[in-house]
C-alpha cells in the first residue's frame, strides 16, 4: 500500500506529501525497499546490479560511481564486486540489497528483516547508518521478528499479531499497555499476543 501496489479498502497513504495511490511512481522514487527474501539478478555482478539500480533511480554517473564505491568499501565487498551474484553468500546478497535501497538517498526506508544473514560488523554499520539517517529526518519502517533488534533500534514499535495492530508506541508506552514495568519487548509481545504459555509448551516438548 505504501508503494501504491495494493489499493486500500478505505483511507489513503501519504508518502512525503504524495498520495501513494495517485502517483505510485513518484512515491517509489522517495522510497528505499528491502524485501524479506530478495531475489536479485544472479547473472549480473554485484557492481552491475548496483549500476542498474542507480540508473533505475536516475542517478547521474559521477554520483552513482561515488556512492557505489563508498558502500562497497563500507560493506567489505571490494574485490568481489566483479563476481556474478550467483556465487555470493546470503550475507553478501543482503548487503547488495541494502546498498541498492540506500543508493538513491530515499526519504523513506521500508526494511523487512534488514539485518538477517549479515556479519556482526556489517550489521553494526547498518544499525549505525540507520540511526544517523533517522537523525537526518529519514523515516525508517522496519519489520522484524528479532525483538531485541526492534527494542534496541526503534523509537516507536507496532506490535502486530494475526493481521491486527495490538499496540503502538515507544517502550514506555508499550510497558504501560502490557502492565509490565521494566520488562523487555519479548515479554510485552508475549503478554499482548496472549502467547505467554511458553513454559508449558517447552515442558510438553520435553516429555
Amino acid at each position, binding site marked *: 500500500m505504501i*508503494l*501504491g*501496489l*495494493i*489499493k486500500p479498502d478505505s483511507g489513503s497513504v501519504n508518502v512525503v506529501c504524495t498520495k501513494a495511490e495517485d502517483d*505510485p*511512481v*513518484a512515491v*517509489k*522514487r522517495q*522510497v528505499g*525497499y528491502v*524485501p524479506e527474501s*530478495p*531475489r*536479485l*539478478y544472479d*547473472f*549480473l*555482478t554485484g*557492481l*552491475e546490479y548496483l*549500476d*542498474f*539500480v*542507480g*540508473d*533505475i*533511480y*536516475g542517478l547521474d*554517473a*559521477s554520483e*552513482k*560511481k561515488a556512492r*557505489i*564505491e563508498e558502500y562497497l568499501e563500507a560493506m567489505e565487498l571490494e574485490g*568481489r*564486486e*566483479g*563476481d*556474478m551474484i*550467483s*556465487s555470493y553468500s546470503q550475507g553478501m546478497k543482503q548487503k547488495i540489497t541494502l546498498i541498492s535501497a540506500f543508493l538513491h538517498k530515499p526519504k523513506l526506508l521500508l526494511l523487512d528483516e534488514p539485518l538477517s544473514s549479515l556479519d556482526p560488523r556489517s550489521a553494526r554499520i547498518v544499525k549505525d547508518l540507520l540511526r544517523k539517517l533517522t537523525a537526518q529526518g529519514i523515516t525508517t519502517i522496519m519489520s522484524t521478528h528479532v525483538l531485541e533488534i526492534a527494542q534496541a533500534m526503534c523509537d516507536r514499535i507496532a506490535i502486530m499479531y494475526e493481521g491486527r495492530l495490538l499496540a503502538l508506541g515507544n517502550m514506555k508506552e508499550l510497558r504501560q499497555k502490557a502492565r509490565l514495568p521494566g520488562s523487555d519487548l519479548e515479554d510485552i509481545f508475549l503478554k499482548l499476543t496472549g502467547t505467554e504459555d511458553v513454559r508449558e509448551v517447552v515442558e510438553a516438548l520435553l516429555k
Partner: protein
Amino acid sequence: MNWKTVLRLVSVDVKSGRLIRGQRLRRYRERRLFQYLLYGGACVLGIVIGLGAGTLYTAVPDPDLRTLFYEGARLLFLSFPIMVLIYSLIFTMMSQIQRMGVRSSIQLPYWLPITWEEHTLASTLAHLIGVPLASIILFGSAIATVSIYLEAVPLAILTIFALVASAFLASTTTEIFRVLQARLIGAVYKSSGRAAVWVRFLGSLLFLIAFYVAWFALTSGGGSIALIEMVASAQQAGWFVPYVWLGMALASFMNGLLAQTIIFSLASLLFILVLFYVAVKLNAKFGLYEPPAITVSRGAYVPKVGFLGRLGFSSLEAAVIRKDFKAFTRRRELMYVFIMPLVFILMPLMQYSGIYGTPVTPGSSRFLSAWILLAPGAIMAVMLGTIIIGEEGGSVWLFFSSPITARSLVKCKYAFVIIFSCIVTLVCGAIGILIARPSPDIAVVLLIESMLLIFALGAVSLGTGIKGADFTEVPRPRMVRPLTVLVYGLLCLVLALAIFSPLLLHAVAMEYIPLPVSLPKLDLYVAISISAVIALVVTFVFYKIALKNAEEFLIKAEI
C-alpha cells in the same frame, strides 16, 4: 538400501511439478486423476494401436503379406531398446538442461539419514517420470496387445523388459552426465576467468544445437524409419558396445539362441549395475555442487554513458535493455532462444539437403529462401515478446518497487524485442541469401516483410507476455502461462498471414507459387504498401494493449 526412502524422494520430485502446473498453492488438494492421466492415456493409446495393428494383421488374407508384416513387427521390436534408449536420453537430458538455471545442488543426503545409493536411485527414477515413462507404457502396452495376434507373447515380454531396462540405462547415463557436467563446467569456468561468460554461452549453444539436430534427425521425415532399419543392421556389428546388448539379447531370442539371450540379458543388467555404482560414487564425490565465482569485471568502475541514450532511451530504459541483453547471454535456461533461429535454418536445410531423399526443386529453393529470411526474426519476436516479462522471475519485485512507469516498461522491453529480432533477421538473412541465393529484389522484399512481421508480432506478443506472465522459477522457469501462449500463438499466426497475404497474392498472381487459380495482378509496391499498413495498424493497436496491460501489471504485485 531403504526402498521407502527412495519412493519418498521420487514422490518429492513428482510433486515439484505442482509449481510448473501453476496450481493454487493455498489449500492445495492433489487431483490424482490428472496426475495419472498421462500414463493412463498412454496405456489406452498403446492398447488401441496394438488392437489396430493386430486386427490389420489378422485381416490380411495374403500369407506373403502376413509374413512381411510379421517380419516388420519383429524388426520394430528389435529396434525398440535402442530407440527408447535414444529418446529417453534426449528427454532426460533436455529436462536437466531446463533445470540448469535453478540451483540444483542436492544437499539433503548430507544432513538427512539418506545414503548416496538411495539418493542416486531416486534421482535416476525421477528422470523417467513424465514423457519417458509414458513412452515406455505406450510402447509396452502396444507390444503386449499386438503380440497376442502375432502369437509372440514370450518375445513381447522380453521386449518390454528390454524397454524398461533401456530407459533405466538412459536415465543412469543422464545422472552420470549431470554430475560430471556440473563438475566439469565448474572447473572450466574457474580456469576461464573473465572469458567464462563467453565460454559458457558458446558451450551451451553448441551443446543445445547438437541435441536439437539429433532430435530433428530422429523425429522428422523418414528419420525414425531410417533409424529402425539402421539399428537392426548396425546392432550386430557393434555387439561389443554395452548399450546395444539389450537389443542383442532380443535378436538372439528371435533366432532361438537361448544361451546368447541369457548372456546378453545378464551382461546388460551387470552393465546397468556398474553404471549405477559409477553414478553413486560420482554423486558422493561431486554431489554437493556450488556454482563457481565467475569474475566478469575487474579494475576501476566507470559508469557507461551509452549508445542507447543517444537513441532516445532514458537511463532507466537503457539500464533495463542492457540488463536483458546480459540475461539472454548469461542465463542458460534462456539460451534456447538463440537455438531456435539456428534450428529454423538447419531444419529446412536438412530437409532439402537430400538426407531424406527429398529432391531440391526451384520451388523448394524459393521456399527455403522465404523461410530463412522470414521465419527466424518473426519467431524470435514472438518468443522474446512472450517471455520478456516472465523471465524476470522472482526478481520482478524490483520492478514493482522501482519508479518505472508502464510507458517506460513497454518501451524498453519492446525495443529489446525489436533490436534482438532485427539482428537475428539480418544474420539469418545473410546466411539464407548465401545458401538459397534468391534474386536481390526477392531478398529485399523478404527482409522488409520480416521487419514488418517483427514490429507487429513483437507488439502482439509483448502484450501477451505482460498479461500471461508467470514468475514461477522452481523446478524450472515457466515465464508465461501455457494457455496464454496457445491462444495468442494462434492469433500471431493469423495476424502474420494477414500481413503477408498481399505479398502471397502477388506471388500467386505472378505464378511464383503454382496454384490452379487465376488472380488479378497485384503490383509488388502496392502489395508491400498494403502489407505495411496492416502491420502498422496491428503494431499500433497491440502496443496500446501492451501499455494497458503494463499499467495493470505494475499496480498488481503478483508475488
